[in-house]
């Protein structure tokens, strides 16, 4: 009850000059708002990416062309992965490797009569669906024969199928991908994001068709290896590396001309990036909050000066110095808390607005820890910025204060 009275008195004091009080909170509102919205987006992105990687599976290993640039060497994009590497890996590591999925990625325009869509074109083998637990709802997926024969067949991602065919069945129809005719043999289930790609906006054709007949390329974009179980990941990776080095005729002592990533490594790299972002973010926010605190202190000093007479009267009717100190400290804290609360709401609103506006491209997630942090900061700022003006107010000599013009 006592604290409520203090709050009400503080609010009354602030209401004396409402506009000025609101301007004073602006710094804190912006500071807190910026932190909250940015953290929400950052946290949302991290959560989003991590969720996508969960789907990747802890037993999967991704292999890319070129060196990673670690160990002080320059990063090279020397292409080196070929379809036969997958075969070699599988045959030499049968006990550890469950399957391999070589992939080639490009983009293309998919047309069905007058309807068309831009899509990612994925050239891969029959193992893709199994490795990613991503299945057809209509028709069938690619087969080994399709790959061997460089067939002109395709499986459409859910979104592409809807775009081109609507509710009509797509199986058996002919579409043109980058000008070449393909027969639709399958439509995939609705999935959304799988790793870094939105597979609903993807069309899948045989690896060999993609590389040799459509894009004229010799090397893969990446190679996914599914190890038999996550516990034996390390020996599996060792085996894979050995096979690749042999296939690429790399001499002992020479560097790998490929890079192997595990889900763990990707998570960690992303985590590192996120940490850097966070540090930068919090620094900027910290500065903005300091500015906000200075703003509040300034306004409070002005307020104390303006209310010098009032302070004199309060002392004359029985206020102790501590009462005056408490009053102005409470007012500063109230401004700050209000600013913090508003900033929290604004930040949350902005982050969610971004999410809606970009249709889910930007994710937003506001963890409770940020809410507590915002409130704590608001209180600290209030006390820190209010203490000096409050002390000045409390030290006023009543007789002189009463004479103040």
């Amino acid at each position, binding site marked *: 009850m006592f604290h409520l009275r203090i709050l009400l008195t503080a609010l*009354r004091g602030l209401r004396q000059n409402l506009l000025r009080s609101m301007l004073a909170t602006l710094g804190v509102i912006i500071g807190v708002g910026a932190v909250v919205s940015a953290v929400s987006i950052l946290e949302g992105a991290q959560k989003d990416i991590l969720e996508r990687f969960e789907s990747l599976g802890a037993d999967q290993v991704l292999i890319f062309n070129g060196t990673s640039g670690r160990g002080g060497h320059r990063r090279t994009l020397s292409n080196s992965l070929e379809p036969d590497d997958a075969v070699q890996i599988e045959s030499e590591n049968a006990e550890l490797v469950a399957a391999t999925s070589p992939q080639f990625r490009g983009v293309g325009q998919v047309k069905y009569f007058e309807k068309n869509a831009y899509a990612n074109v994925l050239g891969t083998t029959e193992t893709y669906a199994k490795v990613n637990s991503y299945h057809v709802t209509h028709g069938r997926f690619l087969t080994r024969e399709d790959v061997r024969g460089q067939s002109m067949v395709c499986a459409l991602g859910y979104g592409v199928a809807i775009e081109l065919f609507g509710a009509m069945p797509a199986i058996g129809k002919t579409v043109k991908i980058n000008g070449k005719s393909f027969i639709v043999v399958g439509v995939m289930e609705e999935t959304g994001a799988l790793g870094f790609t939105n597979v609903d906006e993807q069309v899948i054709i045989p690896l060999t068709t993609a590389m040799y007949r459509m894009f004229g390329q010799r090397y893969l974009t990446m190679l996914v290896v599914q190890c038999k179980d996550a516990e034996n990941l390390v020996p599996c990776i060792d085996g894979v590396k050995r096979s690749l080095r042999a296939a690429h005729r790399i001499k002992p002592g020479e560097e790998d001309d490929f890079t192997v990533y595990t889900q763990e490594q990707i998570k960690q790299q992303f985590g590192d990036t996120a940490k850097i972002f966070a540090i930068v973010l919090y620094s900027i926010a910290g500065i903005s909050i300091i500015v906000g605190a200075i703003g509040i202190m300034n306004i409070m000093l002005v307020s104390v000066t303006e209310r010098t007479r009032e302070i004199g009267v309060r002392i004359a009717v*029985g206020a*102790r110095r501590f009462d005056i100190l408490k009053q102005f400290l409470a007012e500063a804290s109230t401004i700050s808390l209000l600013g913090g609360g508003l900033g929290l709401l604004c930040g949350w609103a902005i982050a969610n607005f971004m999410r809606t506006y970009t249709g889910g491209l930007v994710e937003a997630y506001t963890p409770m820890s940020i809410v507590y942090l915002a409130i704590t900061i608001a209180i600290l700022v209030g006390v820190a910025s209010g203490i000096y003006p409050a002390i000045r107010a409390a030290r006023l000599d009543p007789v002189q204060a009463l004479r103040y013009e």
Partner: protein
Amino acid sequence: MGDSVVHALAGVDLSIEAGEFVSIIGASGSGKSTLMHILGCLDKPTGGTLEFQGHVISGMREKRLAELRNRHIGFVFQTFNLINRTSALDNVIVPLVYTRRSFAKEQARRALEKVGLVHRAKHKPGEMSGGECQRVAIARAIVNSPSLLLADEPTGNLDSRTGEQIMEVFHDLHQEGMTIVLVTHEMDIAVQADRMIHMRDGRIIEDTAVDQHRRDEILAGMHEGFKKVFEQKTAGRRPARPAKPMNAGDAERKLRLANGE
């Protein structure tokens, strides 16, 4: 200021009994305001002792002084000194906030009733006339039923008509037993008290009871309405005290100020 020492008060030896109505008159710079601030425990004398209701003020802690100002002393100022953008009721409540009393609203309302302004309880100073503001200030001063009321030029910012009304309130309060010390530079106001102290250059040059003869002299030149009000009020009053000699060494002191400088 600079190297010279300014004595606002010098050699003041004064005592005031409970229930007295005293006026302190003097020109600007005569030290009357300083005297009032010292009597009200707002300012500390640089020499001498001050006793209030038997307690010696000089060594008191700030907390105790604040308590005195809160419960036993009421201030009324020339410029009202109400808090703007705050209702009359909330203004009157201010002392009660520091008394930490519950049911504050009720007590404040009663104080406003006493000065006849309950109907303006929700109005802000900016919405009220000068006289009404001063009455709210008086309500604030008496809300804790103090034993001493100190008024510094209470009618200074008011026209004579309103000034009458305010003096009426003081007379009412005095009738109920309150001790009132009123500082002014106007003779018509000063003679309305029972006892008048005349100050000049920091010293008391006269300290006498106001006898009827003198009062009539002065009031003769006053506004008719004022006179009528005053006569009505003084009709049932106690007779004025006999004049107190300057250096009386009476044992009974209620408010005693012995000042060396």
